[in-house]
């Protein structure tokens, strides 16, 4: 379908829009695609939440109470561990000593030097 400048385009028509009608800048078209997929996306991408996440890289949360209760609950089974998504910092993820990076006991030489 022919698209007119200024028309509101649903996400599925955007592929056509980009090729046929240059008056909608590609960046705006991409923005519309994103908003269609994630309607609850915050208004300020560069704002506080986004930057705070960047500043908190590496943060692990540990509550000894949670840890001991989880250990007690599972006394016959394995200790709770990180699971596949190690970057999850809230909720059920309880960092355990097993999750912490192990100090390298021997030096593995870089393959660039091989």
């Amino acid at each position, binding site marked *: 379908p022919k698209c007119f400048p200024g028309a509101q385009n649903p996400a599925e028509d955007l592929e056509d829009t*980009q090729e046929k009608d240059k008056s909608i800048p590609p960046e705006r078209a991409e923005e519309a695609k994103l908003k269609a997929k994630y309607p609850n996306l915050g208004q300020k*991408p560069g704002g506080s939440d986004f*930057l705070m996440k960047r500043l908190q890289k590496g943060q692990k949360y540990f509550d000894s109470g949670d840890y001991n209760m989880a250990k007690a609950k599972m006394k016959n089974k394995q200790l709770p561990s990180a699971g596949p998504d190690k970057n999850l910092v809230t909720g059920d993820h309880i*960092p355990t000593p097993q999750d912490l990076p192990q100090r390298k006991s021997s030096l593995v030489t870089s393959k660039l030097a091989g």
Partner: protein
Amino acid sequence: MGWKMRKQTGAGGGNDIQWCFSQVKGAVDDDVAEADIISTVEFNHSGELLATGDKGGRVVIFQQEQENKTQSHSRGEYNVYSTFQSHEPEFDYLKSLEIEEKINKIRWLPQKNAAQFLLSTNDKTIKLWKISERDKRPEGYNLKEEDGRYRDPTTVTTLRVPVFRPMDLMVEASPRRIFANAHTYHINSISINSDYETYLSADDLRINLWHLEITDRSFNIVDIKPANMEELTEVITAAEFHPNSCSTFVYSSSKGTIRLCDMRASALCDRHSKLFEEPEDPSNRSFFSEIISSISDVKFSHSGRYMMTRDYLSVKIWDLNMENRPVETYQVHEYLRSKLCSLYENDCIFDKFECCWNGSDSIVMTGSYNNFFRMFDRNSKRDITLEASRENNKPRTVLKPRKVCASGKRKKDEISVDSLDFNKKILHTAWHPKENIIAVATTNNLYIFQDKMN
């Protein structure tokens, strides 16, 4: 065979440079261990040494072979000179913070004596490493055997003076200074002052000034942390000292601005002397505008007259005398502008590309995806796209320029945007300070290219 000059959109000062594969370092296999991911590449001031840092906290230094007079068609190769573990993973129990051992930056000190010195940093700690050669050792001790065991004193009947005898070259790296506990946030840059006595380290919100001899003190010279963290709107992304003016430095931000500061103006340089910012067309503003304007690297030209910044889609050259817009803008991969939605979803939009100048400041280089890298000749205004790939590894064969087809009919030998491999990113490149020799890092391999001689 070979690529004829007239078919090439070549980049080169005066006569176009013809780039040829020289060497590739690293494992061939596709299964890349995290530790092997290269995180920084840097030539030293003479270009004789080339250092790499990786995610596993290791540094590998290559040394250029002495030129062989009989082999006039190629320059010396780079071979492994030294390798050592610079940083180890740590856990800050007080703050519950995991500290990666990844080497974020390496910067060489100019050579003052027989030894070489470099600074390497991870997110929290900067270390000064001394790399020295040992090519002789004392032999002929009276009380010790050659293997170090002590002799029975009763068997010693004569006295002799130990002498130095030549031995196989041994290169030793030792940490001489450890500069720790000065950064709450993650260090992104280090830069050595032209006075060769001090250096700066920058994290997301603060910049500190150190003296190379003093590890228990550093001075905070920039602090952009707001009183209320809810009001945080931008972070520091890179910082560098001016190459000649020892009181001048710049820092770039996630909002696409660069601030030039003069340390003579005040102890705390929170107020900039100059603010470099290109005005934005408000009608073009989108959700992505700020993210793609974030500057991932800033580098002064060797002359000190210009600085170059890299944002997600472009490289900009700024004249230090003009704050309101760059003097040159080069599009690295403009075809990605219509892919920003998926690049946001796969996090590629946050990739931090670096950029570099050639020795004469006439050409700039930066990386892209699909193991492509780009060069822009500032004089001829020509640009070229090349690929770092083991398929092109015949020495002295000129690299074939690459072309990405943005839309429409794809010509033969072109690659369409949708076929690009976004996992193959070239974030780190370096240019020899004097020669046309470049080091290009793919995820886990280091490529060295040279211009074709004669």
